[in-house]
């Protein structure tokens, strides 16, 4: 069963990685901790579930998986709206206002989701069922979880390449390292910040969409992922992409093995680990 526990840990890590990657991009480039990040995750889940239920089996299976990208798209779009309407007014203000603004956005979006999609649960298991099961060393394992891990890996690789090899990515990194200097060098901070926010939000939405074939989309869906994503970011280091990966693996494995071996502990264990790391190295493992 250890194979299964490890695979589960990787599966959780994959989802957490996407969420915290998004949080970190926004945090790194804009210095904003987006408390509404979980809402974007939820939006991704709802739109994906809704589309999958609507089109059902009427399309070739391939398209079903493409619809998961709708989570990325809609969440990114909402992120765009958020940034343009709210966040950009907050650059000149202090931290308090930024946090409060995203807190307000969290509450607002929660009810917007309720207004659009109502209070019921959306089950959209077709993508999960279609992929069936695979045998790994004598253990049966759902193929879909492997699919999620691959997508997360691809996303991670893509972001890494983007950040290190493309001009746009390098500019984003420049801003996160030294905002003033970057402005001095003539970078269009506003445009780039919007881009970062959209990208980060999209990643959260993608994570939400990926989880929907196994977990129903529900109100309050984004609360736990936000907290877990938060732990990952704090443990891995604010703004660090490497930290997001390591942190996600740490949290994912703690959850998977924790439940198997110490079922009573679960959540407090994670916070304890985060707390200890913060006391010893408050910037996180890879933070600056």
């Amino acid at each position, binding site marked *: 069963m250890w194979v299964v526990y490890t695979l589960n840990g990787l599966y959780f890590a994959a989802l957490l990685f996407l969420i915290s990657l998004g949080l970190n991009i926004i945090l790194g480039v804009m210095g904003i901790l987006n408390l509404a990040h979980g809402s974007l995750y939820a939006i991704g889940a709802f739109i994906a579930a809704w589309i999958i239920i609507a089109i059902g089996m009427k399309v070739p299976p391939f398209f079903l998986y493409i619809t998961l990208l709708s989570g990325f798209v809609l969440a990114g779009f909402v992120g765009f709206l958020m940034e343009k309407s709210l966040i950009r007014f907050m650059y000149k203000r202090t*931290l*308090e206002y930024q946090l409060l603004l995203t807190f307000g956005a969290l509450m607002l979006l929660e009810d917007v989701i*309720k207004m659009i999609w109502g209070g019921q649960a959306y089950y959209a298991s077709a993508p999960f069922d279609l992929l069936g099961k695979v045998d790994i060393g004598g253990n049966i394992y759902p193929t879909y979880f492997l699919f999620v891990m691959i997508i997360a890996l691809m996303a991670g690789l893509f972001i890494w390449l983007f950040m290190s090899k493309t001009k746009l990515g390098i500019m984003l990194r420049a801003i996160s390292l030294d905002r003033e200097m970057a402005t001095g060098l003539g970078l269009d901070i506003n445009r780039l910040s919007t881009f970062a926010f959209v990208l980060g939000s999209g990643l959260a939405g993608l994570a939400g969409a990926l989880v929907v074939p196994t977990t129903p989309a529900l109100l309050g869906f984004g609360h736990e992922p936000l907290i877990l994503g938060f732990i990952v970011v704090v443990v891995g280091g604010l703004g660090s992409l490497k930290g997001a990966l390591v942190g996600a693996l740490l949290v994912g494995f703690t959850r998977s093995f924790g439940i198997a071996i110490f079922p009573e502990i679960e959540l*407090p264990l994670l916070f304890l680990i985060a*707390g200890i790391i*913060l006391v010893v190295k408050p910037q996180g493992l890879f933070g600056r």
Partner: protein
Amino acid sequence: MFKNPRWILYLLILITLLFIPRFLSIHDLMLFEYGITFAIVGLGFNLLLGYTGLLSFGHGAYFAAGAYTVAMIGKYFPQAYSLEILIPAALFFSLVLSIIFGFVCVRHTKIFFSILALSLSMLLFALLFKLYHITGGSDGLRVPLPTLFGMSFKGIRRPEFLSGTYYYFLLIVFAISFIVMRGIVSSPFGKALQAIRDNEVRAELIGIRVRRYRLYAFCISGVFVGLGGALWTFVNGHVTADLSHWVFSGEIVYMTLLGGFGIFEGPIIGAIIFTYLKLYAMGNTQYWMFVIGATLIVLVMLLPNGVAGAVSSLWTKIIKKSD
């Protein structure tokens, strides 16, 4: 301090408050009492936010400390369940918790401080949530009526208790908290905090021990918040782990901002308004979170100094015009 003519106004307000039970229905009076307990919370919280410049999204932990102290004594030591023991106990435990957490937090500033405060409060939340057999877990604990200096309230229903003896008790505690905080804020210590807020480096240079003073401010605010929490339990009758959740802490920040954190009385006004706003919204629409969220956004964008701040600026403008 007391020579300031403001105190006449405060006295008048206090006297008016004494008569409120006659005018409000039991349900509205309970709402008002919620408001007062949060006013005490706001006063304490603002020492840290408005006067020292530190934003904590984790002060729910101290509220929970005060509240759970009351509930646990009720559960495990019912023979000691009287207000004269409960209140000091709540103050003690919130102090201990704020010292421990505060010591860790004040070593950092800005976003690190906020994140640390948040994380520590969530640790407490997770513990309260998981330790089902001790704390009642997510179900929480019930808070029965206490005794006060030997007066027992057996046989009285909670609404009667709250509209009678308890209301005056609450008012007295609030008045004392108000005077104490006013004293703190006007003292040299209070001035030092503001200096730290405005310019940390300069404060250090003139000999203020920044980190230590921040810790003091943190602990005092924690104690006030814990006191508010303890008093709140009797009105609510029930405590749950959510009191330590960051969203609840966010509400504390919200009400402080709503009233205005630049003015001493701001948080009090904010607490009262928020209590009514939230309950009014919850009672009238299923989309009350939208209302609260939208109000918060509008507030941050248009009235960053809160209601009290806006009124105060308006007042200044009027006075200027009449010159």
